[in-house]
């Protein structure tokens, strides 16, 4: 079964689903940041920024897959 994506419509302007998913994932990631800091996420990796980017990509992928 093919997954269908619905477009966000802001006052008649269609916004591509990928933009909505990217923005929601970014918002979720920013909300998660204090938790990551508390858990010491950065200390677990040699390149923390790449690990954070990977986390963002994972969240974006999961959102696209399940919602």
């Amino acid at each position: 079964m093919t997954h269908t994506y619905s477009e966000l419509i802001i006052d008649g302007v269609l916004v591509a689903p990928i933009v909505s998913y990217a923005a929601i994932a970014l918002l979720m990631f920013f909300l998660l940041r204090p938790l990551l800091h508390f858990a010491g996420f950065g200390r677990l990796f040699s390149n923390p920024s790449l690990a954070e980017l990977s986390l963002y990509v994972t969240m974006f992928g999961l959102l696209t897959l399940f919602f």
Partner: protein
Amino acid sequence: MQVNGTNTIETRPLVFAGFSVSSWAFAIRVWLACLLALYASFWLQLEVPSSAAITVAILALPTRGQGLEKAGFRLFATAIGVAASIAIAGFFSQTGGLLLAVLGVWVGLCVYAAGMLDGNRAYAAALSCITVALIAIQQIDSPQQVFPTGVARGAALVIGVLAVAFINDVLAAPDYHPVVANRLAVLHRQIMSYAESVLRGETTSVSVTASMLKEVTALRPEIASLHTESSSGTARSTAARSAMVDLVATLFLARALAMLPAAARPTSGTIIQDEHRPDLLAMCRGRIESELLRKDAEVRGSLDALRNGAHPAVSHRAPLYRCRRIAAENGVRAAICFTLIAALFVTAGWPTTEVALSLVAVIIGLGTTAPDPRKFTAIAILATPVSCLLAGILRYFVFNGVSEFPLLAIGLAPVVIGLALLISLPNPLLSSLGRLSLVFTLAILAPTNPQSYDPNVFLITCTLACLAAILTFAAQILVPPLSSNRRLELLLREARSDRGGLGVARHRHLTSEEAAYHDATRVQQIAAAGGADQSVLDEAMRCFDRSVAVRRCNAELDDLQDGPLAEAAEIARAALARRDAGTVLTAAAALHEAAARRSLPADSACAALVLSAVALSPSASESIGKRQS
């Protein structure tokens, strides 16, 4: 007092062809991000792929946090600019001259906003002006295209930002917090060594203390960029900001110590001589010394928190001082410059001048973020022909009809890497020239798919670009940006009026450290406008001392206003409002006596009153000036 000494091991950086390895890594990152942005834009068939490459050139900063912060403000400002473009085009598209006047007003407003902000916030204000220039002005004859142009530009910008973020993350662009921590630690050592020299009774030039204050406050925009660096970025940014604000407070306390012995001399005529004075001065000195030690410990704690990525024990805000009058005058002048050039183009009736007019707004907008707008325009005059030449060589000698992406990548490499190496140089002139040349080269080359090789279009674009830079410079000769002397006059006038108490009530919501930092940013601007003029620096520092001392005193008296010493505190506040050193000292003695009678602690308020009396005393100030110069 022991200064915290840290042993730093000086390592000689590896150098290749005159540039350090970190500079080469930065240049290669810029080239790769540029290619990635162009490739993604071609693949997504965006209308303006060159905007994505230009975004990469603009976000070309050596560390990841700085690039990401600028990217965030770039996207935010583009959204504001697109909305303003739609509003301006919607309301004024058929109004002829009025449209140009409205665009001039928008340019002026953006320049005003840029003048009231600093760092990337000022850049965002300038970019709001630039976005309107690139969308509304370029589509001046086809307002129905404003929205699609805005969306296309927004999409290209997002691709550029993503390319920079991805390349910086994958290739492990360095973090900025070690650099900030190192600079703060060096400044901490310098300030504590100054405090030690004051305790030893040695003299230090006022230009040295003003320079330390300038260096500390100049870190503000860089500290703000730490926020975006990682998940610990917020904590590091807060820690660095607290350290910076506490360093200003420490420097003030050291200066206060330098003031006291001078005022204690019996020749001082304006301070009332009475039996309590030596006690009060000794108590004031003791309080300042203990506070200095406490501040030293707080700065060390904040620096440790910065290095460990933890929240500091004490958190401070860093309010920025900006002179509204200077920002408004700059805004009006920029609006007049833009309207003059627009009127010239309308009168000339040349075709496709909207490209030149949009470039005029770009130069005016970007110039507001530079220390000297006219110098920036002069660099733009130099950068435009260099960019035209580079773009011409690339287009007609290197590429010359090719349309394959790998060839574009190879052809761009020497220009992009070379100019990025120029950006990485410490010389601000060469760095600005490199950045402008890179941006203009990519704008004039305008890589598209398929690539256009029409020499007619290229020549017209080059001519208009050079004409725009020259006309902006000419307009700035006719209506020059605010001179350093005028800026200095306005800043000193505000500093003097603040000493009179006008600014005290305005900043009641700030702690005394935050208010001191606010005043220190004014000294920074005075030092920037007045150069190394000793008398100007001396007056600026004296105004700083007085306003900070009075503000601290008001804060101490606020703490007493609800207790049994409220009456004495009210008398002291009235004495402070009169700005008379003798009266303030008498009030300090009265408060001290009242507190002693009731066995209540009021030493800190008494010490603050004595310090205010010393700072307000003109003869004491002169003595300090002599002592320090």
